[in-house]
């Protein structure tokens, strides 16, 4: 159900996300002080190539990582197999990629 390639991809995306997650946690603890507003978020992220790269790579990695993780759960607990399992994984990863890219572009494009 998880071939070597998907297994390695799951570990690779995890390793990529390790420093990104730490960064995200630091940003959250910093940004949440005094509440959040759209203007505050945009003033930090809008027009920044660095936030675009940071959260852009985060979205790519998490889309693959979450899709593979859900693939394992769906296979073990719901018994999905072969083609259905592959279609499920592909749909979830593309959905997250699309929604995540939209979110990142919404806060970084100026």
């Amino acid at each position: 159900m998880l071939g070597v390639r998907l297994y390695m991809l799951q570990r690779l995306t995890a390793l990529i996300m390790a420093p990104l997650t730490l960064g995200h946690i630091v940003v959250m603890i910093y940004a949440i002080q005094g509440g959040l507003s759209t203007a505050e978020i945009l003033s930090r992220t809008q027009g920044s190539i660095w936030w675009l790269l940071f959260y852009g790579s985060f979205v790519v990695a998490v889309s693959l990582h979450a899709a593979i993780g859900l693939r394992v759960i769906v296979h073990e607990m719901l018994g999905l197999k072969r083609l259905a399992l592959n279609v499920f994984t592909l749909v979830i990863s593309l959905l997250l990629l699309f929604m995540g890219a939209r979110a990142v572009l919404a806060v970084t494009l100026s």
Partner: protein
Amino acid sequence: MIRKHRAHPLWFAYALHRFSGLALALFLPAHFYILSKALTQPESLDTFLALTDNPMVKLAEFGLVFLLTVHFLGGLRLMAMEWLPWSDRQKTFAAVAVAGAFLVSGLFFLRVV
């Protein structure tokens, strides 16, 4: 009755990693959807952000930060178990993952209340 293997700390570490991963994966679409309103509908994003003044929402945020951190630390533990020649330390790292996540999410929580 709890089956014998489920009383093992490493079974708990496995269950926590799976549960946190599943919860985070289900949360992601909502997270992305809300943020994507920043440019096109900033007033609707602000209406949503105003919800975060609610104590229950703050508690939910605490939960999310905990899940993220415990999944992060649990993942490091998993990869260390798979790739590093450790054995007896496994339980310690499982405990460190939970304690570290609690510390970080606790720090976050203290900042919002």
